[in-house]
């Protein structure tokens, strides 16, 4: 079920949360929306769900849903912190959407039982949601959202409130489950790792606008702007660097330490990382220290020479927010 959003705008009072946003998601695609907090990514999901009013057109599986009230839209939204109903059992939570559709009691019990075993929580039906761990709550919320068989599944920071160790496992689980169900999915996160691992394609949202869109590798190799490059975790995003005009991102593999190098710098820090070391170099004319991967730690204060492969460096658009000020 393809999803198409055209010209979507949302205003909160005098603040623009989303500005003329357009997005196309292919049927069955796992699509991530990535952005810093306040970028409007949760608002986007809420607008698609019809919880906040928006201008523009939302088309799901060829049907214009823009003027439908929330309860008629063929969507499922899993909320941040899950929003499990505290006065209902796990099974009642999962069956809630079917109850609203008028599905009979016995069918609801069967469906809830099936979904709970699908998410690996068979036998949890009579439990109280508050008695579950964070990870279990997440899986109940997922089962509840999937129960009415939405055409578009939306996950709002699904792992945001969980601890690190749990996240990796649940990301894996969520991804394979969504793949198995085959539902078109929007996955909102501020974490680039999650976005890259989950998505077929992703959009980076900054200040209510789409700043980049594409497959993870496309966006990684061509972030376009300084902000996107910083957000997706490029190690050296420079506003100015000697030998380059304008902002540039210098990947680790573009830099080599060699005595004949044409750029000189002073080592100001050296930290252990992933089996090697990363040294930070203060370089004349650069607005920030350059991080370079090396095999051995280097003493602070030493002067070193480096060479930079200009073909591997990525030219960027300037920081729009900074230039606007």
């Amino acid at each position, binding site marked *: 079920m393809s999803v198409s959003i055209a010209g979507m705008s949302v205003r*909160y*009072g005098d603040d623009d949360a989303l500005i003329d946003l357009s997005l196309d998601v292919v049927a069955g695609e796992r699509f991530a929306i990535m952005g810093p907090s306040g970028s409007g990514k949760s608002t986007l999901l*809420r607008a698609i*769900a*019809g*919880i*906040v*009013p928006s201008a523009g057109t939302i088309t799901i599986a060829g049907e214009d849903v823009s003027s439908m*009230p*929330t*309860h*008629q*839209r063929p*969507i*499922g*939204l899993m*909320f*941040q*912190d899950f*929003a499990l*109903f*505290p*006065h209902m059992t796990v099974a009642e939570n999962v069956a*809630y*959407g079917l109850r*609203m*559709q008028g599905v009979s009691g016995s069918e609801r019990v069967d469906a809830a039982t099936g979904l709970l075993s699908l998410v690996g929580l068979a036998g949890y039906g009579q439990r109280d949601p*508050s008695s579950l761990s964070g990870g279990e709550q997440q899986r109940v919320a997922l089962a*509840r*959202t999937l*129960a*009415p068989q939405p055409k578009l599944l939306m996950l709002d920071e699904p792992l945001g409130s969980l601890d690190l160790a749990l996240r990796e496992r649940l990301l894996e689980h969520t991804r394979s489950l969504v793949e198995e169900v085959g539902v078109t999915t929007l996955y909102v996160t501020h974490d680039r790792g999650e976005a890259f691992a989950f998505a077929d394609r992703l959009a980076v949202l900054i200040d209510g606008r789409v700043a980049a869109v594409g497959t993870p590798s496309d966006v990684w190799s061509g972030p376009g702007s300084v902000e996107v490059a910083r957000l997706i975790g490029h190690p050296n995003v420079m506003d100015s660097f000697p030998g380059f005009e304008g902002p540039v991102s210098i990947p680790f593999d573009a830099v080599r330490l060699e005595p004949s190098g044409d750029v000189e710098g002073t080592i100001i820090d050296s930290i252990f990382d992933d089996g090697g070391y990363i040294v930070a170099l203060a370089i004349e004319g650069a607005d920030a220290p350059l991080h370079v991967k090396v095999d051995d730690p280097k003493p602070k204060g030493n002067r070193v020479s480096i060479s930079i492969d200009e073909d591997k460096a990525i030219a960027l658009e300037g920081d729009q927010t900074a230039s606007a000020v």
Partner: protein
Amino acid sequence: MDSHRPLVAETRSARVGRVALVAVPALFLAYFFVYPLVSITVRGLTVDGSISFGVVTDVLSDPTLQGIAWFTLWQAVVSTVATVLLGLPAAWVFARFDFVGKRALRAITLVPFVLPTLVVATAFLTLVGPRGVTGIDLTGTFWIILIAHVFYNYAIVVRGVSAYWERIDPALEAAARTLGAKPFQAFRTVTLPLLRPAIASTSALVFLFSFTSFGVVLLLGDLSYTTIEVEIWRQATAFLRLDVASTLAVIQIVGVGVVLIVYGRFQRRTTVTFRQDIAPPGRATTKRDRTLVRLIVGSMIAIIGVPIGILVASSLIEPAGGFGFGNYTALQTLHEQSAAFVDPIEAIRNSLWFAVIACSIAVLIGVTASAALSYTSRRISTSFDVFVMLPLGTSAVTIGFGFLIALDWPFDLRASLILIPIAHALVAIPFVVRTTTPALGAIQGQLRQAAATLGATPWRAWWTVEFRLVRRAILVGAAFAFAISMGEFGATAFIARPSAPTIPIAIFKLLGRPGGSPFGAAVALSVVLMMITGAAILVIDRVRPSQGGDL
């Protein structure tokens, strides 16, 4: 090791202090509350020193009294249901939206609550009484009692339920909507069940206040409708049937006790885990919401504003016709015309004195009790909590009546004026406790420990740290106590001496006189009383602390 010695001494004195914290309020309540109630019970259930259910049987089989009991019950039920139904939409608007003038409107909702019953009754007399501006006379009908009860208790529902509602995560209802629930379906299946504890506990309060309603029913029911509360007063003061009055009081206490137990149950069962980080509500975003917010805010202003506005306007209509301050100037001269009138100026002076004393007693006892509640073990504090809150559910008339029959031992206090502020303080103590206990409870125990490690004695630690943090809450409690004392009528009706009338007593006496000029003066005096309690509300609104400080 010299420094260790004071520590041992301190623990001992701390223990003495803790005992005193419990003992002072406990002894006060034991003598001025429990002992009179026990005396009433003994009086109602014994004849010549031996237990007898004779009077009880007489009362229960008297068709007139049966009718009164039945009316008391069903009017309270109807008043409660009507107040909750009207209050829920307003609670929703307060909990879920921001709008222009929200803060002011929240303060205004306090007005009916601290408005003395006599003022409320007078306001409705100016609206739908025999001399009312609408020309419709509803006195002696059930409707006027219902309307007055709704007006009076509206704020309890709005404030109590909205405070609870705004802590329920809006995502829950949104989640229901995305799962296919229509707006009302989402409310019914998710929000309403979660609100149930708040609705139940505020309903219990509204029910109690309507069940034991005195001034409103006495003045507006015109004796064709009478509650048990009014009947206790009539039997004791008009017919001098202390045995019947006692029996009625016992019946009422049992009824109140049942409701209080239910109330306590629901108070304790508020187990929904609230989120602390819910974003403050924003403006209404959809057209439908904006219309609803406007409609509901408008109706709130009407419900609260119309009776008050008419009261003030009526006070400016002179008995001879035309507008002017004649009713106010009459306050100074009326008593010179006839010895039957009390001097309103003297009544104002008396009321202010009584209020200051009552307020001091209520703060002393109430804050001590709050401190005891927050420093003693959980097991003691929960039962102590119920004990301290009991006067809230006990009717004012019962308190006044109890004073009258019990407080001749060990000294005869019944002729003493001090009884009036003490009775007022009893009514006010639960409010002081309810405003200060949450504030004290919110203080981290670590602060006290930090002060102790820095060398402060327990008393110094309390004064320099905790008192500073709770003094705003105490001030709010004091303002409530002041306002309650200014307007208290039920208990005062029993124990006021003709030589020292209060404002409500003066209003009551004026309303009992025929003619337009005493009525005009009663209305003017009601406005004066409203302004004084209104000043207390301003204090409450200005200094409200972030923790506690509400009902």
